[in-house]
């Protein structure tokens, strides 16, 4: 059974993952103590290794952070980075195969068969259904042939039989992370597994996995009202930058991604300079670093790929999306804001905290407690990514009988207050106190710390920024908040999206809406 007033889960996730980019923490002496426990090394191939000694229990956690995500998917191939992430669990030429040389030949035949099928399928005129069916049959047979050499899921099985805990990966628009925890005596085994799959991914069972990812899209986006709404919201907010593109992939593109494309993505982005690996736990750097160096030197070197040229142009007209369907009403709006490297990054964090954090937050007190029109109301940022200029978004969940229009009006009133009146000293101090405490709380978790260290190392070139950012938090002023609110929260910079509930057709049995 659930209880509680609003989605603290969302908030705690923000604090742990998303906000690692922005909240930073702890005093000088903490940084000093971490400097004594953290060892970093950049290998000749460009891979950065970080070891943080925290021998509280005989376990370690790791995070491999790849500076590439679905924002890097080539045109026509949305969903590619995520598809590749799934492939990275399928094994290598050494694990997951009964006979790699023979499997390699069979996989080449699968690609040729897929190419032939796709060529016929995509013919604008003159597609021959009979030929298409034959080509599909050849494609399926080629997969069946290749499957004979596969030992399914051997990579993950070896990890799990050796105590891997919390094994998973996640692909965002900006980056891809792989992670799990293990007993400390499996450190070398882990180093073999992780370096092998980074360096030697093979296109095994790609097309079955593509079907699996299509199901993931159906679950997260197509069959979820908020998933559908957010996909349209972002596609509307952005006109040029890839932040507006479906991260999991548009169905037509995702369903036609090929293994060749996935391997090309690997070749381009999974190079040493794009990879940071952080290990936190019962690990001695003096012993472990030479061993890790040996394994991770296998990763191909090469320069970081070129940065993308696209910059989202300034929005000059308000945009809106209205979805009319038989689900309950919902409202979200977003304003373009700069990336995490902007000097005002901490000012956005302060606004988020004051507007959204807990029962004292302005949106909760106004929309939930006083006006009693919403069950939840929050602002959050950056969304949907942080590496490039993104959005500051606000959303509200209307109480029964209340409308998206009321949410919008009430949110705008609170935004106007930010623009015209200084926040109080108490509010600003509260933000600073909570930022410090939240960072401190995160330091006792191996997995969270590994993730934060690898992310800060990638984004700032130095994990120390995790701690040093507290200086930026401390420097935020009331004037900064008013200035930024006036710059960013203007109508011409706004995109909104809402669900307006449609009455059900009469005599329908499935009910569920008023």
């Amino acid at each position, binding site marked *: *059974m*659930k*209880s*509680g007033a*609003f*989605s603290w889960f969302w908030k705690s996730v*923000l604090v742990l993952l998303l906000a690692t980019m922005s909240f930073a923490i702890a005093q000088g002496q903490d940084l000093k103590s971490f400097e004594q426990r953290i060892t970093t090394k950049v290998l000749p191939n460009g891979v950065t290794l970080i070891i943080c000694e925290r*021998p*509280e*229990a005989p*376990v370690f956690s790791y995070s491999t952070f790849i500076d590439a995500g679905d924002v890097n998917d080539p045109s026509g191939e949305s969903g590619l980075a995520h598809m590749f*992430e799934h492939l990275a*669990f399928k094994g290598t030429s050494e*694990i997951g195969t*009964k006979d790699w040389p023979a499997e390699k030949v069979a996989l080449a035949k699968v690609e040729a068969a897929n190419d032939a099928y796709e060529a016929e399928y995509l013919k604008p005129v003159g597609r021959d259904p009979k030929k298409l069916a034959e080509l599909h049959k050849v494609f399926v047979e080629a997969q069946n042939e290749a499957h004979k050499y596969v*030992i*399914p*899921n051997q990579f993950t*099985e070896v990890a*799990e*039989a*050796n*105590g891997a*805990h919390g*094994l998973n990966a*996640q*692909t965002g628009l900006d980056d891809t992370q792989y992670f799990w925890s293990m007993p*400390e005596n499996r450190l070398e*085994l882990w180093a073999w597994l992780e370096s092998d799959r980074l360096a030697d991914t093979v296109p095994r*069972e790609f097309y079955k996995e593509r079907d*699996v*990812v299509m*199901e993931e899209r*159906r*679950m*997260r986006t*197509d*069959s979820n*009202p*908020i998933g559908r709404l957010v996909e349209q919201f972002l596609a509307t907010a952005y006109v040029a930058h890839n932040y507006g593109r479906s991260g999991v992939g548009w169905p037509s593109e995702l369903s036609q991604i090929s293994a060749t494309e996935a391997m090309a993505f690997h070749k381009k982005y999974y190079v040493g300079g794009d990879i940071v690996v952080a290990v936190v736990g*019962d690990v001695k750097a003096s012993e472990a670093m030479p061993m890790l160096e040996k394994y991770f030197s296998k990763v191909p070197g090469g320069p970081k790929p070129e940065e993308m040229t696209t910059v989202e142009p300034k929005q000059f007209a308000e945009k809106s999306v209205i979805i009319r369907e038989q689900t*309950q009403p*919902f409202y*979200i709006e977003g304003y373009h804001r700069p990336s995490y490297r902007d000097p005002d990054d901490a000012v956005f964090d302060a606004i988020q905290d004051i507007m959204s*954090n*807990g*029962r*004292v937050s302005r949106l909760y007190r106004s929309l939930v407690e006083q006006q*009693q029109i919403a*069950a*939840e109301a*929050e602002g959050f940022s950056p969304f949907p990514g942080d590496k490039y200029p993104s959005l500051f978004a606000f959303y509200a*969940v209307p*109480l029964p009988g209340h409308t998206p229009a009321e949410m919008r009006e009430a949110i705008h009133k609170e935004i106007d207050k930010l623009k015209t009146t200084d926040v109080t000293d108490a509010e600003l101090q509260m933000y600073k106190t909570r930022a410090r*405490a939240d960072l*401190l709380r995160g330091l006792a978790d191996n997995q969270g710390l590994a993730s934060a260290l690898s992310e800060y190392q990638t984004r700032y070139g130095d994990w120390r920024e995790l701690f040093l950012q507290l200086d930026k938090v401390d420097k935020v002023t009331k004037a900064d908040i008013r200035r930024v609110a006036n710059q960013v929260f203007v109508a011409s910079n706004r995109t909104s999206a809402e669900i307006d509930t449609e009455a059900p057709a009469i005599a329908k049995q*499935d*009910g*569920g809406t*008023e």
Partner: protein
Amino acid sequence: MRNVQMKQNERNLGSPRRDLRRQTVIGALCLAFLGSAILSAQQSKPWEKIPIPKLHAFNPQEPKRIELKNGIVVFLQEDHELPFISGSVLIPGGSRDVETAKAGLIDLYGMAWRTSGTAKMDGDAMDDFLEARAAHIETGGDVDSTAISWDSLKGDSDQVFALAMDLLFHPKFNEEKLQLAKQQEATGIVRRNDDEGGIADREAMKLVYGANSPYTRQPELATVGAVSLADLQAWHDRSLKGKLIVGISGDFDPVAMEAKVRAAFEGLPPVEAAPPRHDEFAGPKPGVYFINKEDVNQSNVEIVGLGTDRRNPDVPALAVMNEILGGGFGSRLFQKVRTELGLAYAVGGGFGLAYDHPAAFRAMVMTKSASTVDATKAALAEIAGLNTKPFTETELNRAKDDILSSFLFRYDTRDKVLAERERLEFYGYPADYLETYKAGLEKVALADLTAVAKKYVHPDKLAVLVVGNGPQIEPSLDKLNLGPIQTIDISIPQPGRPASVEK
């Protein structure tokens, strides 16, 4: 009981959460994993040549247990790594102990207790006080318990502890805050059919336990409307007579902390034992059940039956069988339905193991509308296969390796050790339960698996629930050949005057 959370619990009304930014390789259902692949003799297996040294010695620090004369139990778990102190009081009695006409009372109680506050400091003032210190006090409820918990920096901990005790012993329930909670609850009720996964979860459990069972009955607008302020106070007064379990962890001096906790709790009267429950668990009526939802393109399929509780001596063998059936990447369900057939992203399942009542057996698969019948048949075949497809040594060993080599993660932090001890105390299990359980797992043999499969796996007693888009499901569900399809009506009862507009 659930681990006491410092933060208010998630109320999933559909926030655009982090999951919308992230795709992952495995879905939420795949909790733990194991394997069954046939290894080839030719493989060189370089990973097997990597030495695995002896694990560093580790004696997890047990909390100090103090039983007060009145029967209240206190656990103190020192942890000086960071300057925080947190605590909780676990209180027996939860939603299963509430009358059906007031279903939802515990949700309302969990919210309004904290937001109301006390005579000395009302809930809003408490919010200001705590947030300025990055501290928290929260209250909440579950099926068998309620709890208050707190957390603060060490320097604020005396004040926060005093405030938490004031809220525990002298709450002043407030009508406005109850109304606020009712609005929140009503919002959850009217939105509950928007989320396909939520419908499947809820209705599957209703099939197992019965729609009006204490374990599944759901709050409705009318039952929420029926809860009064006096009901909250009466619940509070009654539940505080039970055996409280106090847990404190963090950066404190143990002597001073013990004195402080004794001073707060020793004066209470002797605890009253909870009356025994007499629940009946018949399990589902076998058959195929269907809920139509036309705004989705994927079916949520739940295959459910009755599970067991952890006092059952067969639990270690059942846990190993769970790994083999639906534990993760290497499990039969995952290997077949996801890896081999590509029919699902989320697939998994097994026998639920609860502490004081039979949990459910549950297997689930989410698949595109058109493959609903194929995926359901494949999952059913794997369940039936537990009795017909012999378990192999490879499967057994890998399942045991999976569970045992990650067993460490049940107690790798002091907070986890504390939470486990509180859980065992709450349900009356011996303190060495984990060790006994582990020893049991180590002993599981092939014959045990065959025996538990025979004893507990009865495909003819399972119910199949499909939530999906009827017109898109082709071939249709009658192709499952499991009898007539029974449609479940999930429309939300609308009382004449909804609770949500009572102000």
